[in-house]
């Protein structure tokens, strides 16, 4: 839309502003914590994640082996559950009314689905954050946005301690669309009173799986 002249002129303005002797690139001291202290997937990390998620009023369920039962319990009261490609089939055994995104559902169709069940890419214990990157079992972004309930299964070895740990994991595929989720949607715009559940899913439910299930076939490296 804009001709090369505008671009060239803006870049020229920037160069002029920096002067004939532009400031030297600054060295960046990175002596903050580059890695968390809790080991990935440790019981402490899982406890912290659960605690922080609950602090944001997400529903947290701890599971060790029977993911299907945990998932079924969290979705027992809904009649339609959207399941993106790549969610392990053995998690679905207790579900009825599963819906697939093939062919891709329209926005209105999505709006008529009650819940969505997904995996995740990584979870940050310290901040109570689950990150989706569109890998297997996570679907395109709209799937986890329009339905009012989002059930996400987090496996132990996906749980890292701190933000830098997660950024390091995500850096393997930085171009994927990323969604960082910390609790259900919320607003504090009216007198700073926090109201949970606005436009995004109002109901976030997280299953934290402490040990490999289904014969240890589930690992976080499936992406």
């Amino acid at each position, binding site marked *: 839309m804009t001709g090369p002249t505008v671009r060239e002129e803006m870049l020229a303005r920037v160069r002029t502003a920096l002067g004939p002797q532009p*400031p030297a690139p*600054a060295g960046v001291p990175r002596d903050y914590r580059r890695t968390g202290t809790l080991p990935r997937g440790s019981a402490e990390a899982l406890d912290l994640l659960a605690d922080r998620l609950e602090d944001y009023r997400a529903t947290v369920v701890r599971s060790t082996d029977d993911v299907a039962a945990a998932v079924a319990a969290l979705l027992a009261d809904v009649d339609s559950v959207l399941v993106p490609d790549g969610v392990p089939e053995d998690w679905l055994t207790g579900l009825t009314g599963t819906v697939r995104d093939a062919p891709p559902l329209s926005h209105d169709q999505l709006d008529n689905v009650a819940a969505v069940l997904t995996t995740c890419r990584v979870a940050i214990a310290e901040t109570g954050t689950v990150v989706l990157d569109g890998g297997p079992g996570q679907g395109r972004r709209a799937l986890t946005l329009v339905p009012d309930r989002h059930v996400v299964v987090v496996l132990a070895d996906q749980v890292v301690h701190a*933000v830098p740990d997660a950024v390091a994991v995500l850096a393997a595929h930085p*171009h994927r669309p990323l969604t*960082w989720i910390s609790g259900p949607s919320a607003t504090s715009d009216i007198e700073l009173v926090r109201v949970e559940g*606005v436009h995004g899913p109002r109901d976030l439910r997280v299953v934290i799986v402490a040990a490999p299930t289904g014969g240890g076939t589930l690992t976080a490296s499936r992406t």
Partner: protein
Amino acid sequence: MSTFLGMPTVRPHPADPPGAPLRWGPSFPEAAHQTLRDEQLRANLRTATRTIRDKRRRVTAELGDWEQLRDAGAAIKADVMARLPELLTELEANVTAHGGVVHWARDAAEANAVVTEIVRAAGAREVVKVKSMATQEIGLNDALAAAGIDAVETDLAERIVQLAGDMPSHILVPAIHRNRAEIQEIFTHRMGDAPAGLSDEPRELAMAARAHLRARFLRAEVAISGANMAIAETGTVAVVESEGNGRMCLTLPRVLVTVMGIEKVLPTFTDLEVFLQLLPRSSTGERMNPYTSMWTGVTPGDGPSEFHLVLLDNGRTRALADELGRPALHCIRCSACLNVCPVYEHTGGHAYGSVYPGPIGAILTPQLLGLGEEGGPFGAHDPTGSLPFASTLCGACYEACPVKIDIPSALVHLRERSLHPDGGHPPTATDLAMVGAARVLASGRLLRLAGWAAALVGRATGGRPIHWLPWPGSLWTRVRDVPGLPRRSLSAWWRDRQGWSR
């Protein structure tokens, strides 16, 4: 701002329709004269700013490496400024490589024209918007309205402000000047589809906004957003939010336009680990905000199929050219400085007459507008020139700022710019008085003389407090006494004691 002919009970803030979004209204003291009288506003602000700053204090204290993160954040930003040309072209290349289109805009008019053209080409008459300071700054909604395009703000507070015909008064919580009763009023009379019998419960109000916006999200063809940061190395753009309106806008429409100030670029993907800790904890006082979205160009089968990134100058290169003022461009718009500022807490955001209020506004607005440049604004009584004086230099902002912007020093520097514009100006009475004062204050002898004169007055008044002084002293004595003056000068006391040292 669109004009409404709604119920007379909802009066827009500010009352007079503002001119340019970057600076409207009178000088700071004149505007504050109005806002200081609004007891309701002051009560709202007092509670709100205190709540949020206590939260911030708690979650920043929780991180043992908070100071190291601030140091890293400050250094990354300084590095960005030093390498801005190369980082911008790198960002452009990576966005383009992933199917995005990059546009450049030197000023508000250019940016508005670019966005309008994109929306027109998409054939849309209505667009949904994510809260964005950059689009506020350029007055994009008005420009779109002039082209027959309805821009719907989707952030709750931003929607309140839009429906009320207000200007925002806070960077993060733009409707902080409105309480629940006023919001109920605004929704009932202006929303068009407010449920009957809507109460003033925050939850109910939020749910009314959800219902009001839902259909618009689902049918929108075009969305417009700002950007909290963009990564040069990967072409990734990030938006940080709470309500999910951002995700709706960034995901559902076919076309996405992002308007971003050129200073928002970050060098590497790794830098996210610094700013995604600094920003949420400083702004909302949360460990992490509910939602952060990141995308790179377009992703086939997921989200918009067309992505436009508009890189905006609009005065930023002016600020960049001023070495001492440059750090204002490091700002990540967290609003921590507003929440800790005692001046902001008393006057509210509208006294600053800009979409950028508070301490950061007091340095950023004048710089974007070319304070002190030949032909530009200057002087302590000019609306823009008065902004750097709207501070006691208490330093609370500097202490809170996650990227360690030394706002007090920048304020002092800009005061000097304001009073010493390029090309000079005829001296004011204050200038002459200050030059005279400087001569006294540069001489031990003259200052002793002043002390002797003060003691003379002290003896005449019997050392009693003084209740009244002529102007400009009246500015002081209107609300304060002058504590009693001494009956003997310091030099007389010392001379009697042992004699001045040589």
